[in-house]
């Protein structure tokens, strides 16, 4: 495969990935795109590294593999960006957390089974670091996988007293019930979630949550 094409593919993958990618992973991902060997991938990585040298963005090798990162010089600036608008939690993280909350104790393998995709270590790590989940035991099967459960920190942060306050599964089935349940909870909880309603940035005129109800109700 032409070196330039490998370079573009590696660049695309690293720019789009949630976390670092190892050379081995890149090799697997590129299996159908010319199937470069590891040496070719390493060549592309160092070419990219020099392409980006001196830019605000750098390609670095960290423990988990290779990743693009904004340079340390800009830490202050990015702090301002995030202060104003905290980053959104990724879909993958939310789904993992939701599965742990509802299906605990649950192993990583079981989460992956339901999600149909692998759960990255960095997600589990983030959840553990935030003390939203913890290891509550091990399943007594080969490999002794850790079982995860939620913590009291999780309940505190979500303003729940007990886990049972989470809406029940049937309520979740139906979107309308789900909204009703969320409203009920929100009505009982403090207003602290207001500040982080990042929907507001795209739909300034309409508070997203409330509005979602009104049209369909009116038209029922």
């Amino acid at each position, binding site marked *: 495969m032409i070196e330039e094409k490998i370079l573009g593919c590696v660049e*695309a993958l690293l*720019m*789009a990935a949630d976390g670092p990618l190892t050379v081995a992973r890149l090799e697997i991902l590129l299996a159908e795109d010319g199937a470069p060997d590891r040496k070719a991938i390493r060549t592309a990585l160092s070419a990219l590294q020099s392409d980006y040298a001196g830019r605000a*963005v750098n390609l*670095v090798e960290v423990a988990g593999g290779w*990743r*693009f*990162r*904004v*340079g*340390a010089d*800009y*830490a202050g600036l*990015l*702090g301002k960006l*995030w*202060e104003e608008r*905290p*980053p*959104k*939690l990724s*879909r993958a993280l*939310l*789904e993992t*957390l*939701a*599965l742990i*909350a*509802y299906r605990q104790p649950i192993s990583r393998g079981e989460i992956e089974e*339901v*999600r*149909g995709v692998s759960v990255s270590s960095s997600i589990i790590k*983030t959840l553990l670091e*935030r003390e939203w989940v913890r290891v509550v035991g091990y399943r007594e099967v080969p490999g002794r996988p850790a079982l995860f459960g939620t913590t009291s920190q999780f309940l505190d*942060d*979500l*303003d*729940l007293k007990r886990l049972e306050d*989470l*809406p029940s599964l049937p309520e*979740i*089935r139906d*979107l309308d019930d*789900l*909204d009703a*349940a*969320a409203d009920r*909870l*929100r009505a009982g*909880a403090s207003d602290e*979630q207001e500040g*982080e*309603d990042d929907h507001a940035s795209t739909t300034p005129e309409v508070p997203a*949550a409330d509005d979602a109800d009104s049209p369909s109700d009116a038209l029922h």
Partner: protein
Amino acid sequence: MSEHPADFVDEPPPAAILVRGERLDQLPDDLYIPPDALRVILEAFEGPLDLLLYLIRRQNLDILDIPIQRVAQQYVAYIELMQELQIELAGEYLLMAAMLAEIKSRMLLPRPSAEDDEGDDPRAELVRRLQEYEQFKTAAENVDTLPRVGRDMAVVQLSAEQVDIDRPQPIPALADLLLAFKEVMQRAELFAHHQIEREPLSVRERMSGILQRLQGRGATPFSSLFPKSEGRMGVVVTFLAILELVREALVEVEQTEPYAPLSLQVAGARGDRRGNDDVITSDGDD
């Protein structure tokens, strides 16, 4: 095309089902077509306008040149088939059938003059609606082909050195968490659903099978083509295969009178057989 008339003649003559001119029997009682399965098929259409468009387009007709008589007949045939199979139809489908019937009857009346009656020509209204619907049907397809973030494109959101640690992590809104859970569960179900769909029943394969069965035979009752043993998916695959065969003009669907069951034959066969009694065999299905 009766290429193998021998096959046809050789068949034992079981209870003959008269097609032309005479009322057909009801669907055999032992024929099991789960209504759910046909509902699935009906759901392939986005409503009466979509079904009508399909009927028009599959004959390569221009919307402006619809032979209303023919299309209305086919539409009604579909609707009656659904009703016969006790599919609960959305009111819109019945409304459309009524509208088509009205147009048909009005077209039989002599037109006073070419210019006089444009104002409330129900056919004009139908054509307007069909065009408008097709316009947005196409627009929807166009929108779907645009590259989309999350499907074809990725937005870049890098983290930074050093800031990683103090980067504030938001607390998820409970609603977001619930939504995530709902979606992951839905996806899990979808996944299971896909696996059912991937059962070794292929539409193409079924098309060949049906075509083969129809070769050298006259009109064959629609219902006899549904094997009882295959359950819901078998019915769906068979029905899709028939629709596809019709679309590719390989077979013709015919209904001789209102409420009569549909029958199928190889395209072009009707001409050959015209003048016959058209007594055909119900082949004591397998």
